[in-house]
C-alpha cells in the first residue's frame, strides 16, 4: 500500500540522548493521524524530522508518495507540500488578516508590486467559504489581535490549505484555548479532512485528538507503543491503554 508519507526505522540521537528509536510512522492519503504522547515522548522531534529541521540518524528512510526522499530539508518539505501550523507563533498580530494569509507569499504584479485588491478579495472569499466568519465586524482589513484564539488557529489552518498543502502538521492547536474556542479549532481540523488533505494532529489531550483523528499513534519514550484505528477502539479503552503505557512503558 502506498502512503502519502512513510517513515521507516527512524532514530534520532542528540549527544547521549536517544529521543527516537526505530520509529515506523506513516500518514495515508486524506487521513488525519493523531499523535499522542507525554512531554519528552519524541513528538516534536518526529515532526522536526518531517519538516526537515533535524536529520534522522543514518539507517532511516523517508518516502513521499512512494518516492524516497534522500535528504529532507525545510525547503524540500515546503516544496512537497508539508505545512506546519504552530501555536501562537504563526501570525503577525498587528497586521491585517489579508497580510497574514499571504504572509511571505504575497500575490504580486510585476517588480514585486503587491496586488492588494486580489489579496483582499481572496481573503474575503476564504473567510466566507472556509473560516465561517459571518460577522460584519471582521473584514480582511481587521488586525489579527482582535480575534480569539480559535479564530487565529483557523486563519493559520486556512492559510495552509490555501497554499495547497498536502500534509498539515498541527502542533498542539488547542493549547490555551477555551472550550468553545477548542471546538472551533477542531472544526478547522475536520475541514482539512473535508478538503481531501492529510494532517498530523499532535496533542497530549486525548479528548481533543480522538474526535477528529482517523488513526491514533501513541508515542512513548522515543518509540511507537501502539496504533489504533478509531473505529476499532472506544475512547474509554484508549484512555485505559494510555494510562497503562504511562505507568509501565508497555502497552499490554
Amino acid at each position, binding site marked *: 500500500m502506498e502512503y502519502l508519507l512513510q517513515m521507516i526505522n527512524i532514530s534520532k540521537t542528540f549527544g547521549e540522548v536517544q529521543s527516537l528509536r526505530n520509529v515506523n510512522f506513516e500518514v495515508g492519503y486524506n487521513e488525519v493521524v493523531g499523535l499522542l504522547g507525554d512531554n519528552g515522548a519524541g513528538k516534536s522531534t518526529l515532526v522536526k524530522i518531517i519538516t526537515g529541521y533535524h536529520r534522522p540518524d543514518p539507517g532511516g528512510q523517508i518516502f513521499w508518495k512512494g518516492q524516497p526522499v534522500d535528504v529532507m530539508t525545510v525547503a524540500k518539505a515546503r516544496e512537497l507540500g508539508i505545512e506546519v501550523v504552530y501555536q501562537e507563533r504563526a501570525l503577525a498580530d498587528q497586521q491585517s488578516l489579508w497580510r497574514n494569509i499571504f504572509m511571505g507569499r*504575497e500575490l504580486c504584479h510585476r517588480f514585486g508590486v503587491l496586488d492588494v485588491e486580489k489579496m483582499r478579495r481572496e481573503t474575503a472569499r476564504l473567510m466566507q467559504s472556509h473560516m465561517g466568519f459571518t460577522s460584519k465586524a471582521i473584514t480582511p482589513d481587521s488586525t489579527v489581535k482582535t480575534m480569539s484564539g480559535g479564530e487565529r488557529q483557523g486563519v493559520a489552518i486556512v492559510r495552509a490549505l490555501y497554499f495547497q498543502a498536502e500534509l498539515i502538521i498541527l502542533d498542539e492547536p488547542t493549547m490555551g484555548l477555551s472550550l468553545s474556542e477548542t471546538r472551533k479549532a477542531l472544526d478547522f481540523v475536520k475541514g482539512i479532512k473535508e478538503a481531501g488533505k492529510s494532517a498530523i494532529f499532535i496533542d497530549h489531550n486525548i479528548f481533543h485528538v480522538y474526535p477528529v483523528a482517523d488513526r491514533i499513534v501513541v508515542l512513548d519514550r522515543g518509540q511507537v507503543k501502539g496504533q489504533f484505528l478509531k473505529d476499532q477502539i472506544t475512547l474509554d479503552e484508549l484512555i485505559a491503554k494510555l494510562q497503562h503505557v504511562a505507568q509501565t512503558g508497555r502497552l499490554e
Partner: protein
Amino acid sequence: MNTVGEVEKRPSVLSPATVREGLARFARRYAMQIGIVAVGVFIWLLFLIGSPRTFLSFPIYAAYMSTTPFFALMALPLTLVIITGEIDLSFPSIMAFGMTVYALVLVSTGSHILAFVACLTAGLAAGLINGAIIVYIGIPSLVATIGTQFFWRGVVLVITGGNGTGLTSAIGGVLHTGLVGRVFGLIPAQMIWTIIVAVVVWFFLNRHRFGAHIYLSGDNVESARLMGVNVPRVKMLVFAIMGVAAAFAGVVVSLEVLYFWPTLGEGYLLSTLSSVFLGGTSVFGGTGTVFGTLVASFIIGAINAGIVAAGLTGFWTQLIYGLIIVMSVSLQTVLSRRLR
C-alpha cells in the same frame, strides 16, 4: 474604503446608520493619522492666535519648508528601520561622514556631481556596515549604532582635522539648484524632495513586497521566518536605505548653508527620532505610517519657530517640545486603545 463588505457596495440609499458605521470604521482604521493631524491643527491654531501677523504671512512657511526637510528626509526612512523593530542612532554621524567624502572628492576633482555620487556611496557603505553588524554579528541595533555613531564622527574629525569646507562653488550648478534652489522663486526644492521621498517610501511600505516584509519582520520575527520572509535581507536593506538618506540629507543641509561643518548632524538626532515616534510608529516595531512621520516632522519643525514668533523666549523651546511630545504620544495611545 475597501472591497469587502458587500453591504457597503449596495449603495442605493445611504441611511444615516450606514454612514455612521462607515465613519466609525474609517476612524478606527486611521486613528493614528487622524490623531496626529488633530495635534498639528491644534498647535497651528495656537500659533495663529498667539501671533496672527506672522502666521498669516508666507515667509514663516517658506522657512519651515526650507529647514524641516533637513530631518524629515531622514525621519521617513527611519520609520522603516523602526517598523522592523530596530533603531538607528548613527545617522547624524553618517551625514557628516558622507559630506567628508563629498569634500574630499570635491577638492580633488572640482566636480560637485562626482562628489555627490561619492557621498551617497559612502552613506550606503556606512548603512550596510550597520546592517551587517546587527544582522550577521547579532549586536542589538541600539548598541551597534551608538558604536558606529562615535566611530563615523571620529573618522570625520580625524580626516578633516576639525576644519570645514566652503561650498560656495556650488552656486548656480545643477546640484545646488536641484536640491536647495527655490521652485518658482518661492518653494525650497528640498521640500519637493521631501514629498517625493515620502511618496516613494509610502509606496514601498504599503504597496510592495519589501514593505510587507518590513511589517512582518517587526511584528513577529519568528513567524516571518517560518513563512519564508528573508528577515536578514530586509534588515540589511532598511539600514542601507537609512545610510543613503542620511548622506543625502547631509548634502541638502550643507548646500543650503554653503558650508560643510565637521559637526554636521549634531542636533538632528532627537528631532528625527521624535518625528517618527510622534507620528505614531511603535518603538516595538510592526506598526507605523509614513503619513504620520511626515506630519509629525512638520509639527516638530514648527514648534521652534512658532515659540519665538509667539513672543516667548527661546528658553521655552525645550519645555514645550517635551510637553507636546509626551502629551500627543499619550493621546494617541489612549485614542487607539479606545477606538479598537
